């Protein structure tokens, strides 16, 4: 079972990393979502024990590790908040630069920096 979990973590993480390298802001955000999912999976499966759910546990029964579950809930919610923020950021970038392509953005910024430098020199 551990091998399968580890494989799943690896696959999801790898797909997320692949998306992260695309020049599209939205794809980058989705890549981050996938990586966060992989991390949460690793977190939940790293619980010491696995058994019944930790609700109304009777003594002696094998119960799934509740600590990692609590941590995972926190991580999922924070991940959602960060994703929401990233999405609005991407939208805002679109509004001000009319593109969501990172290549276009960085070349535009390089152009602007060159202009500023040349303007400073001329003054």
């Amino acid at each position, binding site marked *: 079972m551990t*091998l399968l979990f580890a494989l799943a973590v*690896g696959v999801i993480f790898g*797909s997320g990393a692949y998306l*992260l390298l695309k020049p599209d802001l939205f*794809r980058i955000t989705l890549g981050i979502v996938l990586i966060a999912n992989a991390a949460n999976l690793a977190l939940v499966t790293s619980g010491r024990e696995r058994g019944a759910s930790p609700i109304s546990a009777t003594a002696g029964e094998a119960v799934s590790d*509740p600590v990692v579950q609590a941590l995972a809930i*926190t991580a999922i919610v924070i991940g959602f*908040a960060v994703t929401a923020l990233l999405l609005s950021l991407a939208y805002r970038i679109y509004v001000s630069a009319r593109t969501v392509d990172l290549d276009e953005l960085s070349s535009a910024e390089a152009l602007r920096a060159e202009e500023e430098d040349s303007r400073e020199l001329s003054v």
Partner: protein
Amino acid sequence: MADDRPHARGAHRVLAPASAILAALLLAATLIAWSSGGGSLDLPWAPALGLRLHFRLDGLAVLYILLATGVAVAVFAYSARYLPLHLAHGGRPAGESVRFYALLVLFMGAMIGLATAQDLILLFVFWDITAIASYYLIAYDRHEAESRWAALMALLVTGVSAVLLLIGALVLQAEYGTFSLPEILEQVRPGGAVTLAGALIALAAIAKSAQVPFHFWLPRAMTAPTPVSAYLHSAAMVAAGVLLIGRTYPVLESSRLVLDGLVVVGVASMLVGGLLALSRDEIKRLLACSTFSQYGYVVFLYGLGGPLAATAAGLYVLAHGIAKSALFLTAGAVTEATGGRNRLSDLGGLARELPVLAAASGLAAASVAALPLTLGFFADELFFGAALERGAGYALIAVAGAALTFAYLGRFWIVIFLGARQGGEARAPRLLVVPVLALGLAALAGGLVPSPAADLAADAASASVLGPAEASVAYHLDLRAENLMALGAWALGSLLLACAGGLRDPLMKVASIGARLGPERIYGGSLVALNRLSDRIHDFEVRDLRTRVASVLMPAGLLVVIGVLATPSAGAYTVGSIRVRDAGLVLALLVACAGALATTVPRRHLTLALVVATVGYGLTAVYAFIGAPDVALVAVLVETVLAVLLLGVFSLVPADVLRREAELPTRATRRWRDPLVGVVSGGVAFMLAWGALSRPVRGESIAAEHVRLADDAHAKDVVTAILADFRALDTLVEVTVIAVAFLGVSSLLRRGRLL
């Protein structure tokens, strides 16, 4: 934002008298409390941290509260007339006066708290409240860039130095184990830590009282409306600095170094302030320079040490507070009366048309210049006595300072009220003159019957030096040293006054050199440098983030792989067993993995969003099968909201932009680089996860402990108990993150409008 609702107009008219009455009541209450022996209040605040709400009304507190509330009465009465005129000049609605009075009353309250606080952290809290209130008051004319700049400067200088006060308090706490001032002052002995704390506290105090080299914020702060300058920057806020010195005096006294430092700073401020005041043209700036010069006297006295000097310092603060606020109010009245003239070169001969104002401000000016029949005369008498006690050199410095004071005040009063008449008609509303008259008469009364004030100063001194102090002040018509020094000062001062015209140009030159090379330049320069540093870092890091990320991920991944392969790891990886009833779990994992792999395929954003959602839902099933129902519930809900969010944001961006992205051909290099990086990082994650999950279970884990304790927490669901009880602090931080994210999304999507 205009606030001109009809009822606001009526409300603000009540504010000025109400505040004045409040100040008067506090004044009366303080006097009554003092005459019945003072009192104290001691409540626990945060016992776990050793903090107490400890207030005590002793001589020192009474002196500063008297100043804060007494001058407040005059200032509120003055503002009742001044503020409507000021707002009308700027075309601002009358409702803005609510903010003014609220801030001033807050400030007065903070001064009372500061004066009576006996706990170092409590002191620091009130200290910062005064700094914040001062920031808003200086920038009262928000639309003026200069006001905002001045307010920021004041806030930064006093705020950063407040941190020094906090550090000093912490050093004392580390040394003596308590924040409570009476306990610390009892146990103070000379030593390294105490010297450090004393130095830090002294630095905070001199920054607050605008002493050299932190003097540059005070003249700038004169962009504030006149009542604010009269209250804050002559009688209250700058007084807080010397209040701190008086309150923690035994700590400072234990180190010769700190006291000598105070002497140097005091003398420098005296002379720099005096010389600057002699050369200033704008009347409020002149008075500002005079203020920090006068506080230089006080710092100098505290540096000299001894009960006589401490008494002199107390009396000086009192006399100066009364007289200087009167002079500031005069400046405002004169400007108002002449329709906006605020430079000495434009004013003259107003005594004929404003006789009452001339007489009242004459009394105030005489008090600061230490002429007989005023409270200031006795303050200077004690000052000379204390300086003489320490040596002839100090006495000479004292005389020089007094001479400068006499000179620039003489220039101030003579130029404005005597001499050739300049400008047109001058009319000052009565309510602008009466407070000045009241304060001037107070200075006169102090000059005729000095013992109450002197006793109060002695009381304050005995609270400072923790020993007996007394002041016997009376008119002595003999040739004692103090009288001779006073006469010398007046003579020298008159000489300076006579050649004031000739001296002006060289003084202006010196002043401009100071401005170019002095501490204000350092302040401005450091702000610019900080900005530039931040720009540099941004350029370096953010220009092309992805290439940098990829260039880091690859080598890091390879290194980790090499490391993992190289370490002996036989038996460290277990495959684990798959039971038949885990079939659902395996299926769910397969779905999640398939979804993840599938995200590499779609080109259109909508499809991609749905595929990513699939991964999330697959993982939800995994959580459910694994015995983590709470996590599964949260995961499925969050995934749903995320899907809605994604679709929502995609709908905001026009279809053609998205299509452009979708149909972009991948560059040749990227076609092999991206999958490679994906595989390598996936592989690394796999190895790490496998290694971590394979670790054998050793001994009892915290989990079992939590399960056991959940019963005590009245919970049957252990996970909820952990979230809301055992690890509630994590949850608190997490909801803060959510709140901040909400703020961010709100302002990003609505172009800065928050809610």
